């Protein structure tokens, strides 16, 4: 990445990597005056299991009884799983007993604080909320930034990873579907977006500091060892389910009710032009947040106060580009082209983006508006054709031409999302049957009327052909009734003499097979070549190579690649376990509910409390069979009518992000109340945590396991020069084709995926980059190169 770029310009990149640059951004920090985020997520509303779990006094005999009966029944039926279950149960119960009392919930809080590692529910309380806006003062509404309010933030850089996640919080309120993780190494102007907390925590350092299994070559989600290191990355997350329909919402198929149908995201559909991959140039804008699940400490205050990494989540818009062969209507053949894609969505997942016309925030929106800004970019053009050549001219009709204009002619093609993705698809199990496209907002949700503005940029030197354009995306013109906007702008040159077409070779790619060395079972395998993504669900039973040809998503494709481009391959995926099966349930089945502790009126509840006291009882049984201490019920009744109505009485209700997970204050906290514990807030978060805990199927079922990754290993500054590497320069392949004197060149590329582990208490993926390290699978790919 060239660091000489400013807020109004960028040099033309001859390597075709930094193909575009956002300009005139009010977020670009040219003079490096912006302070990095402090990382102090606890100050902005993140919760710590150590101090924020409410020791409610609920003797949750039901929860412990359920754990017990599940254990007993399974031990009776399948004695060999006993030790594994015992490990889980005993650890919980031992901690309970060590605390010296029956107060299950208090002990659970302690357990979360001390024994979080390896326990999913350790992340549960940290996930309430999972993300809070940077600079917010506690639960708001005040912000401690110069603007005094939540501000949309941007980042631009090179992607060090790009993959679909496999272990998100599975409840619908947090994840409509698996997220896509874009890990961006920011350019200078956005370096401040990496905060002081974008570092590894102790549990991760324990895993990665030598001596250990994961040594120096380990990358943990782009996190640094020290702050201020721009070689590390910041994560930008998109909830794929926010603009795609999760597969659980498809009608069940009687032939295969548990089978996974469809594709895990619109980016895998062949009708979607391309989607970012590792080593691509990338820009995003959205909500700047702290990831509360990743803290350096559970202490909220003091010298050891926990720090959290920054993220953009959700992303409101992303932009990326591809350098490839493209067929313009005006040319006979494909020519080198730069294709720039901008995609924006009002739906963000846990929160959406409001409309500029909204007078106040809605229950499901954050403060960032979807359509209150336009965005300008500089986009590189491909190298123009040579103007030289023999052009016989003279008086017509003796000569064919009497005038020749040597100025190259720029060709532009503009296409709008959802591009070539149809509204209806063939059922993969029954191709004659049409089913609603599972991974698409209704096509009417896309605004296709807003035209981007494309202007040629005048070169500095006179007489030189322009090599850049300015693209303006007028997102502010997107209609309030539309949820998404996407546009792909393809830019190339008219090719009168065919010289440009000669530079583009046809590359037929066949992913022959994949051989898994460790994992068996249901594996969801995702492969990408030059930003085109393919998906292969596999049932793996052995280490025998599995052919990918013939798969419903057969990645047997034809690419057209310019002679100065590269061929890049990446792959990832997951082994789907019980956790993944839960993820594939319908939205309602994954929706968390809370409240309704007593399904009686406030008056009746008070009467029951009085009667219990009169009868000498110190407990009251709730609607779920739990016994609550009378003192605790009285305390809850004193928290005011809002809390009582929400949590104590009435029907159970859906957990809402801004009401229950991240309850934002409607007005600033009075000075006299600063530093006081917000009891209602604390009780609310704890109630949600308890509901999560009770959903034992999710906790007990196996987590998905990430597959290893094949990645284009050389960095943008160290382009590969051999044809058997990843990335592979086309120039090397073309030279071999010419040297061989054949019409076709067949090249086999064998890639090996490094093993991936889950490291530390925040469930981060650790990528082991050592060449000699353990491997997960081998991928065999065959390329056939020829003229088009």
């Amino acid at each position, binding site marked *: 990445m060239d660091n000489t770029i400013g807020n109004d310009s960028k040099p033309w990149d001859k390597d075709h990597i930094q193909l575009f640059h956002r300009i005139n951004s009010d977020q670009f920090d040219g003079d490096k005056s912006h302070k990095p985020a402090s990382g102090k997520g606890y100050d902005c509303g993140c919760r710590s299991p150590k101090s924020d779990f409410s020791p409610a006094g609920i003797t949750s*005999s039901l929860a412990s009884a*359920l754990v017990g*009966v599940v254990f*007993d029944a399974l*031990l009776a*039926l*399948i004695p060999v799983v006993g030790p594994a279950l015992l*490990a889980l149960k005993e650890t919980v*119960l031992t901690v309970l007993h060590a605390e010296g009392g029956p107060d299950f919930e208090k002990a659970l809080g302690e357990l979360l604080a001390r024994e979080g590692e390896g326990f999913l529910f350790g992340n549960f309380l940290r996930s309430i909320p999972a993300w809070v806006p940077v600079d917010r003062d506690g639960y708001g509404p005040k912000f401690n930034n110069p603007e005094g309010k939540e501000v949309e933030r941007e980042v631009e850089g090179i992607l060090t990873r790009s993959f679909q996640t496999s272990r998100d919080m599975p409840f619908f309120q947090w994840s409509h579907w698996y997220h896509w993780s874009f890990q961006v190494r920011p350019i200078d102007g956005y370096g401040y977006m990496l905060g002081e907390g974008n570092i590894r925590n102790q549990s991760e350092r324990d895993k990665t500091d030598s001596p250990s299994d994961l040594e120096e070559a380990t990358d943990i989600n782009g996190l640094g060892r020290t702050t201020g290191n721009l070689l590390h990355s910041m994560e930008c997350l998109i909830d794929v389910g926010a603009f795609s329909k999760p597969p659980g919402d498809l009608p069940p198929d009687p032939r295969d009710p548990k089978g996974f149908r469809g594709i895990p995201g619109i980016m895998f559909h062949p009708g979607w032009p391309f989607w970012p991959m590792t080593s691509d140039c990338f820009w995003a804008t959205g909500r700047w947040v702290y990831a509360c699940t990743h803290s350096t400490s559970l202490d909220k205050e003091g010298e050891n106060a926990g720090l959290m990494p920054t993220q953009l989540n959700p992303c409101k818009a992303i932009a990326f580009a591809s350098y490839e062969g493209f067929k313009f209507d005006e040319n006979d053949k494909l020519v080198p082209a730069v294709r720039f894609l901008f995609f924006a969505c009002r739906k963000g997942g846990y929160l959406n983006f409001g409309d500029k016309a909204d007078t106040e925030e809605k229950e499901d929106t954050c403060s960032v508006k979807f359509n209150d800004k336009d965005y300008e970019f500089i986009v590189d053009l491909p190298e123009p054709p040579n103007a030289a050549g023999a052009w016989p001219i003279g008086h017509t009709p003796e000569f064919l031409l009497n005038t020749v204009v040597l100025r190259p002619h720029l060709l532009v093609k503009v296409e709008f999302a959802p591009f070539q993705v149809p509204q209806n698809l063939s059922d993969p199990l029954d191709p004659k049957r049409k089913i609603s496209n599972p991974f698409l907002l209704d096509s009417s949700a896309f605004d296709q009327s807003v035209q981007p503005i494309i202007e040629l940029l005048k070169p500095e030197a006179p007489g030189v052909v322009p090599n850049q354009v300015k693209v303006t995306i007028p997102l502010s013109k997107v209609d309030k009734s539309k949820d998404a906007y996407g546009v792909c702008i393809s830019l190339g040159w008219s090719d009168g003499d065919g010289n440009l077409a000669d530079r583009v070779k046809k590359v037929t790619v066949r992913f022959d097979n994949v051989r898994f060395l460790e994992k068996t079972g249901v594996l969801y395998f995702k492969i990408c070549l030059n930003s085109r993504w393919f998906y292969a669900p596999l049932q793996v039973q052995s280490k025998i190579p599995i052919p990918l040809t013939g798969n419903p998503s057969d990645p047997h494709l034809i690419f057209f690649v310019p002679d100065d481009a590269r061929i890049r391959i990446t792959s990832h995926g997951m082994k789907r376990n*019980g956790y993944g099966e839960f993820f594939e349930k319908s939205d309602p089945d994954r929706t968390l509910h809370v409240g309704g502790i007593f399904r009686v009126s406030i008056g009746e509840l008070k009467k029951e409390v009085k009667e219990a006291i009169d009868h000498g009882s110190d407990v009251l049984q709730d609607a779920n069979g739990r016994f609550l201490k009378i003192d605790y019920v009285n305390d809850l009744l004193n928290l005011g009518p809002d809390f009582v109505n929400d949590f104590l009485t009435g029907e159970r209700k859906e957990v809402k992000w801004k009401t229950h997970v991240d309850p934002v204050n409607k007005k600033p906290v009075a000075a006299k109340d600063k530093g006081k514990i917000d009891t209602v807030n604390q009780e609310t978060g704890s109630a949600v945590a308890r509901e999560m805990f009770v959903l034992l199927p999710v906790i007990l079922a196996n987590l998905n396991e990430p597959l290893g990754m094949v990645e284009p290993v050389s960095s943008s500054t160290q382009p590969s020069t051999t044809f058997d590497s990843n990335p592979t320069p086309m120039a090397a392949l073309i030279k071999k084709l010419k040297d061989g004197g054949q019409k076709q060149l067949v090249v086999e590329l064998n890639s090996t995926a490094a093993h991936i582990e889950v490291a530390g208490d925040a469930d981060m993926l650790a990528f082991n980059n050592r060449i000699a390290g353990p491997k997960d699978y081998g991928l065999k790919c065959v390329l056939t190169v020829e003229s088009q």
Partner: protein
Amino acid sequence: MRFILLEKNFSPWFLAEVMRIVAGRDQAEIFTKALSAQLAAKSFRVRMETVRGSERSVRLLEHVSPQCFRVVSDTDEMIIMDHSTFRRVTGRAWQRIPFDVGSVIGQFLNPNVIEELTQGTAVTFNGTEMLDEQLMLVFQSIHPKALGTDITTISKIWISEETGLLCRLEMESEVKGIQTRTVSVYFDYNADIQIEPPV
């Protein structure tokens, strides 16, 4: 799960007895068949006793295939009928639990999950013993660092030579210095056990 045959210093009589019984038979197959028979049994009862430190609890579990359970302890009683669960604390009324315990149990019956949970388990054939006047084949399994914890569990399993069914299970482990021992005695296989929804 890994199956290992260990050389042990049996007494001559014992060794001869073992050899007589298991000559020509595959111990791994006996063990695997017993586990399958357990899942396939129409019904059975188990008396479970757990001692954790100085505390002791006793439960009686009744199972009717495919997914009905009744668990009675000193403090409460639970009935699971497929996807319905009921509970009563001793001396109180029955309550329907708004939680699908049957599904949780069902998830563990998935062979892939069982395989995952038993990874790292080593089973050895320990010889024979007489138990309640029946000849038993005794197996020992060691499951180190279960689920990534520091907990290592040693189990002993008694399988009837005559019926091939599981008769007794002992599990011992130590968690943070506290010894835990669970003994399960299986009986009344395929008896006529009735479990009905209480409300």
